């Protein structure tokens, strides 16, 4: 087994683990972490593909390597947005559970401010 294959399997495993966490975790923060594992796995697979493309005196194909950097940045931005959303939800409701049927019924009612887009 070559190192590339080893890391390729690692990436595949990370994807599976992340996906499992994303489906089964109850708390949104855990789902965010699972999403990051999943993304990390996808990037590792991409990194293996880059490594396999080593040529022209380079240790790897620079195109996928550059795209991974872009992907990591986008993933970070997604994490930041999601974490902020979770924290705000926690601030408003005292919990981060977001299943509609778990919210107290009165919060489901659409209030006037919602209709006018929160522009009091």
């Amino acid at each position, binding site marked *: 087994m070559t190192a590339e294959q080893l890391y390729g399997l690692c990436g595949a495993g990370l*994807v599976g683990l*992340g996906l499992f966490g*994303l489906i089964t975790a109850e708390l*949104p923060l855990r*789902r*965010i972490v699972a*999403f990051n594992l*999943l*993304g990390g796995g*996808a990037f590792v*697979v*991409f990194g293996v*593909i880059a490594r*396999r*493309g080593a040529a022209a005196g380079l240790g790897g194909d620079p*195109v*996928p390597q550059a*795209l991974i950097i*872009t*992907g990591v940045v*986008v993933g970070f*931005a*997604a994490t930041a*947005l*999601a974490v902020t*959303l*979770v924290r*705000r*939800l926690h601030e*408003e*409701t005292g919990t981060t559970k*977001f*299943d*509609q049927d778990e*919210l107290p019924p009165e*919060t*489901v009612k*659409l*209030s*006037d*401010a*919602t*209709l*006018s*887009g*929160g*522009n009091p």
Partner: protein
Amino acid sequence: MLQAGGSLLVLALMLPVIGILLIMSLDARHTGKIALALMPAGLAVALAIAARVWTTQAGLEYFIGGWAPPLGVALRADGISAVMLVTTSVVIGAAGLFARAEFRQPDNQPEARAPLMFWLLLLGIWAGLNAVFLGGDLFNLYVALEMLTFAAVPLVCLSGKAETLAAALRYLLFALLGSALYLLGAVLLFGAYGTLDIALLAARIAAQANMASPVWPLALWVALALMTVGLLAKTALFPLHLWLPPAHSGAPAAASAVLSALVVKASFFLIVRLWFGMLPGLTPWLGAQLLAALGAAAILFGSVLALRQARLKLLVAYSTVAQIGYLFFVFPLAANPAASTASAALAWTGGWMQLVSHALAKAAMFMAAGLIAETLGHDRIAGLGGVARVVPITVIAFALAGASLMGLPPSGGFVAKLLLLSAAVSQGLWFWAVVMLLGGLLAGGYLFRVLSPALGPLPAGWTPAARIPRDRQAVALVLALGAVLLGFAPLKSYDLLQFGRPAIAGAVTR
């Protein structure tokens, strides 16, 4: 290669981006003006692209920076891109006009949050949509999809209410899962074919399929499955629709209009790009039938749930879940190996007609629902009595949009469903035809639930919660009229949808 049209494609992509950068760096008072000024310009660019595609009868293509794929990134516009670009600028422009008064910065006061954010996010959605419709590169399209997600999710919770925050979080998690699966698929395709450019991928995949001893391209099918599932989560096709109703019903009306009319269609557009553009003549027949089956389930399930909603905006949102289902009949009907070219083309046109007419009708309907809710101070269907007497134009807009959704002649929705229906019947796939008819009936049912009380008498001693200016009602009406008038479009104009389309019928792997 038509580098000459390239500046148009770049401009379509960059106009909204310029708007975002300007708004961020200038005083907040100019926010709405900047955004609204860009909208006619964007429409003009979209129309120019459509005109060019029409006159050249082929797609436009531009290699950014002069770097040809696979090293560089290509922008491409074919007939369907042009149609989507025009539809997008119309709906975004209408949403801008509709929201102009609502999201105005207060005079002589410190900057307010919601107006600033609304316009920035609306431009963000526009930029993301244009990038999706023009993108020719799978990774560039991934970035475009993320733009769309990052702009759409905050719009859902613009009001900051707890229930909208929960809806936005759920939407974000679905969308992120979708992007991650899409990216994974793109990665595998790069590993197997060494390019991310859709046209080059199509050529390399076709070359592989034509080899004397065809390799079983497992990478291709795994990638296609991952990307399709990821994009379905973003399109909210049943059973991945759970996030849509709370998200679309909680957003401000103008935002709901854009989200329901356009944003969910962007990922559908990409599925079509993959299935027809990347795999010309190789569309997996079983997969196409599966997509149609999910579409059929969406139509029935979404309609029944719409029938059971107590709130108007949720009803409209579930109607979106149902109407998205029709789009997926394109897959078996336009890629049927047994179908004639004419019949496949019929289905193709019908699918895109459904997309455009639903975009206009649903935008109008969400705007109308928002106005009704503003007038009444609530949006409970049980309390809609007599609302037609207060805001008649709005209710007319709602009814016209509803007629298109039901598929009543002579609306655009009617033509769309007729085309799909006749394609299904002529190809002997009558069961899809039955579902379409049933969906029309159910749509009639849930719309009747709204219109019947709305046209009734006003309860005694009722006072409106808000006065609705005429021009906002007019925006909804114009969009609804557009959806209806689409049915009168000359048949010749449908050819636009076919330009640059890869040959799809007659050569499908079973």
